[in-house]
């Protein structure tokens, strides 16, 4: 550049105008670029942005459907919904949560347990959900809050449907309960591809039928298309798809029978499963003690939860499905049937019982000192003779026993429509190999077979397995999958989807052999160990008592009074009636109940009396005084 330039005005103007022209061109070019950009957005990509604007504008608000109700076989309601007001806080919209709750407490009664529950919900939830601080507000409380509402942004009253179990503790282990959706439930929902249908749903079946039939009971979530602003506030409703209420469950269960059975237990612990042999429908499913499922619906309080979980009665355990007990002498009819079917015994073949059985240097004792004398099959069942089965088991061998028992369902899940059933233990050399680590423990000893033969030893079955096997005998070998739901009812269409009685398998038992066993079981209640419980019955009931050892006696005799209550034997009873055309088969277990004849059989009697005759017991929990010998 030269140090200075002298300028010619004409040239200057010309140059200026050239520069102006250049800028003019730049302006047009820039505007053209803008136009191209607009064309791109508004013509080429228009549809995409149109869609995004719509997505912005329209929000789908789920409308949670009414959960299906659960009724028993006669229409008695076991689970239903009711509407109540809740006071809810959206934590994301409240800065000082503690302060707001304190302020609220001046308007509405808020107990420390409400705060505790709220805090627990808060930990489990996302910030934008509204959470109940109080449920079931009275009308007066609602009115009081509404008058003060302006003071509490982020707090609102909502009308919600709550689950209610009107029968309280009754059949709690069959029904189960619902609770607030947690992470595990979300996984289940995801696995079932039901995320869309569960938008807005706050409760989920946790146990029992509520869990198993969750997706039937839930219904189809409806949607409201709502126009929302950028803050997510609804401006107006554009359209509405009504929710479809969940399906109702109609159970095979009989509430009154269930009540009779539960009352018969009194405050004893135990389980009872009653099955309709011809269908597998469960008439009563008892696990005592129960619990009140209503406690769980809107989040169980800390104190209640601890009480339920620390109680040594373990009310949360479903003993009918998860308790595995040695069957004791209730195993004998099945052993006898095995002997007949495998040809190891004829009904008439008798042994002489000296009161003990020596094997491999060990003496296996009979209950009756001096023995039962000559014992044939009938007598072995009616009087519950151990020696007969010591000898029999020894002759049959563990493999034959295990093979036979397996087909009756022992040691495998019954397939009842409740989750989490236990398998129990069907002892066999293979089982032992899997169960134990050390080689010397893995070996099966012949002596162990002998204990198995009288239902002790490693035998451990759930009450429902016992009931199922009993029903199989009652039903002449046709086995059904036990189930609680008779049919699922769609209340919109009225359509009923029956849970078909599914014959699991038909066991090829010879009718003559079954007859022998049934006759002997009838004998039990007529002249044997169950005679006392069934004295004066107006129907013919077949049964078998049993006692399962809890405490192993190393020599010495078992004296009931001297053993701590918790170490007493479990009492068992299996039965079906009427013997010629059974409509009910059951298994009863009373934990630490002592002799089966004493505490378990009377419960069966009350259940049968109600089922067959409609008789209600005058007094709950009868128990005979000691006296009747044998088990």
């Amino acid at each position: 550049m030269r140090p200075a330039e002298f300028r010619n005005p004409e040239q200057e103007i010309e140059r200026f105008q050239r520069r102006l022209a250049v800028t003019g061109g730049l302006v047009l070019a820039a505007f053209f670029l803008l136009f191209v950009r607009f064309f791109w957005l508004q013509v080429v990509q228009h549809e995409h942005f149109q869609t995004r604007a719509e997505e912005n504008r329209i929000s789908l608000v789920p409308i949670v459907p009414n959960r299906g109700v659960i009724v028993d076989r006669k229409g008695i309601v076991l689970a239903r919904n009711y509407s109540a007001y809740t006071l809810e806080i959206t934590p994301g919209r409240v800065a000082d949560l503690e302060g707001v709750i304190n302020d609220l407490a001046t308007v509405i009664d808020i107990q420390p347990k409400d705060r505790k529950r709220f805090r627990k919900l808060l930990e489990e939830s996302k910030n934008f959900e509204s959470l109940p601080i109080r449920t079931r507000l009275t009308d007066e409380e609602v009115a009081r809050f509404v008058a003060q509402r302006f003071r509490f942004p982020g707090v609102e009253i909502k009308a919600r449907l709550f689950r209610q179990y009107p029968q309280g503790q009754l059949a709690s282990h069959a029904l189960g309960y619902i609770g607030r959706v947690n992470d595990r439930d979300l996984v289940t929902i995801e696995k079932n591809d039901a995320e869309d249908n569960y938008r807005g749903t706050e409760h989920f079946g946790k146990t029992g039928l509520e869990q198993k039939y969750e997706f039937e009971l839930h219904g189809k979530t409806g949607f409201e298309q709502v126009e929302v602003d950028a803050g997510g506030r609804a401006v107006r409703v554009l359209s509405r798809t009504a929710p479809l209420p969940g399906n109702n469950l109609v159970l095979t269960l009989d509430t009154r029978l269930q009540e009779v059975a539960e009352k018969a237990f009194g405050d004893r612990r135990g389980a009872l499963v009653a099955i309709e042999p011809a269908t597998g429908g469960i008439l009563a499913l008892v696990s005592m003690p129960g619990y009140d499922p209503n406690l769980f619906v809107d989040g169980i309080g800390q104190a209640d939860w601890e009480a339920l979980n620390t109680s040594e009665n373990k009310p949360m355990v479903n003993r009918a499905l998860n308790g595995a007990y040695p069957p004791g002498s209730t195993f004998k009819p099945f052993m006898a049937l095995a002997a007949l079917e495998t040809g190891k015994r004829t009904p008439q073949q008798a042994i002489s019982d000296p009161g003990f059985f020596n094997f491999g240097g060990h003496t296996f004792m009979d209950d009756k000192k001096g023995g039962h004398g000559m014992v044939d099959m009938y007598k072995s069942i009616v009087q519950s003779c151990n020696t007969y089965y010591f000898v029999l088991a020894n002759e049959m061998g563990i493999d034959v026993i295990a093979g036979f028992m397996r087909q009756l369902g022992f040691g495998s899940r019954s397939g009842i429509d409740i989750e989490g059933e236990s398998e129990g233990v069907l002892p066999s050399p293979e089982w032992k190999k899997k169960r134990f680590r050390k080689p010397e423990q893995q070996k099966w000893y012949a002596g162990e077979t002998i204990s198995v033969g009288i239902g002790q030893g490693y035998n451990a079955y759930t009450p429902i397995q016992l009931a199922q096997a009993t029903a199989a005998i009652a039903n002449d070998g046709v086995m059904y999958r036990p189930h609680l739901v008779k049919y699922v009812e769609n209340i919109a269409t009225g359509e009923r989807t029956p849970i078909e009685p599914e014959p699991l398998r038909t066991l090829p038992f010879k009718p003559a052999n079954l007859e022998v066993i049934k006759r002997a079981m009838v004998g039990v209640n007529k002249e044997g160990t169950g005679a006392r419980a069934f004295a004066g019955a107006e129907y013919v009931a077949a049964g078998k008592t049993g006692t399962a050892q809890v405490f192993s006696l190393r020599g010495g005799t078992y004296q009931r009074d001297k053993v701590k209550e918790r170490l007493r034997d479990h009492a068992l009873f299996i039965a079906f009636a009427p013997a010629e055309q059974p409509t009910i088969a059951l298994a009863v277990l009373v934990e630490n109940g002592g002799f089966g004849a004493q505490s378990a059989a009377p419960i069966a009697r009350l259940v049968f009396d109600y089922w067959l005759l409609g008789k209600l017991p005058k007094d709950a929990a009868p128990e005979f005084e000691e006296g009747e010998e044998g088990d």
Partner: protein
Amino acid sequence: MTEFVFQPREWVRRLAAPIDPVLMGMLVLLLGYAFLVLVSASPERLNNQFINLSVALVVMRVAAQVPPQRLMHLALPLYVGGVLLLVAVALFGDITKGARRWLNLGFMRIQPSELMKIAVPLMLAWYFQKHEAMLRARDWAVAALILLVPVGLIARQPDLGTAILVFAAGFFVLFLAGLSWKVMSVLFFGGLASLPFAWTLLHDYQRQRILTLIDPEADPLGKGFHIIQSTIAVGSGGILGKGWGNGTQTHLDFIPERHTDFIFAVLSEEFGLLGNTFLLVLYALIIGRGLMIAANAPTLFSRLLAGSITLIFFTYALVNMGMVSGILPVVGVPLPFVSYGGTALVTLFAGVGILMSIHKHRMLVQK
């Protein structure tokens, strides 16, 4: 003493005398359009905007009255006063939203940077006029200093939008004054090369805005929200638009600052490509008229001033529409003559007034 005579026609004639009917006609069309959009975007602000507009028109009329020679005398004091005020802002300014832009005078708050949009081109035009006969390298350096001191002060506030506008206004003067292409290309490539360095000088939020422009979806609910939502508004408008008052993005509050910096999104959503094109054409016509006035201006000073004022309008429009449609970063630049707000409107109409004055006096000087 002249007698008072009731002559309304004469008064209107005198009042309208310095006003360029062509430019005014285009502006009236644009203002009408702007009010239409504002009624949809924020009807409750209509009255205020009328007041703003009245003040702006008075300023325009006054500016149109002032002959360019008088303006030349104002250049130095306005510029020096403006720079001093900027220094005062840097020292004692009020902080609003993290930026020190306002000076509290006790009875009112002023934003001196706004003044510089006119004062800087005025000063530069005056400077080049003074050195018209002989331009030495030193003069260019002084001119550059005149430009960069206020721009630097404003950028430090920080107010990138205004800094860009002031810089553009001043740069246009230099460009029209004949800044050699060689120097410009050196500056351009030098600038390009120093970009990484400039990056380190930017505030975090400024960097974020540039990153957001490149990939708005990276943070759709946070930093990218504005740009995504305004782009959706523009795109969903389609060819004919959703109709006046029917913009869902606008009316459901998805558009931030919908009456000020983002008003173009409202216009675009409701009037579509057609409405955008109409706006572009109006701006092009106004700018064209301004450039014509510059081309016909009698002195170097008035040529440079008219040219640069016109190009400020262009810069405003380009930066704003580019930002709303997602091709330029978000800076606080309003849509000229359309966005709600008094300050920008007054500045813009002061510029219009100066243009009109230059146009009015194009013959007088030459005589």
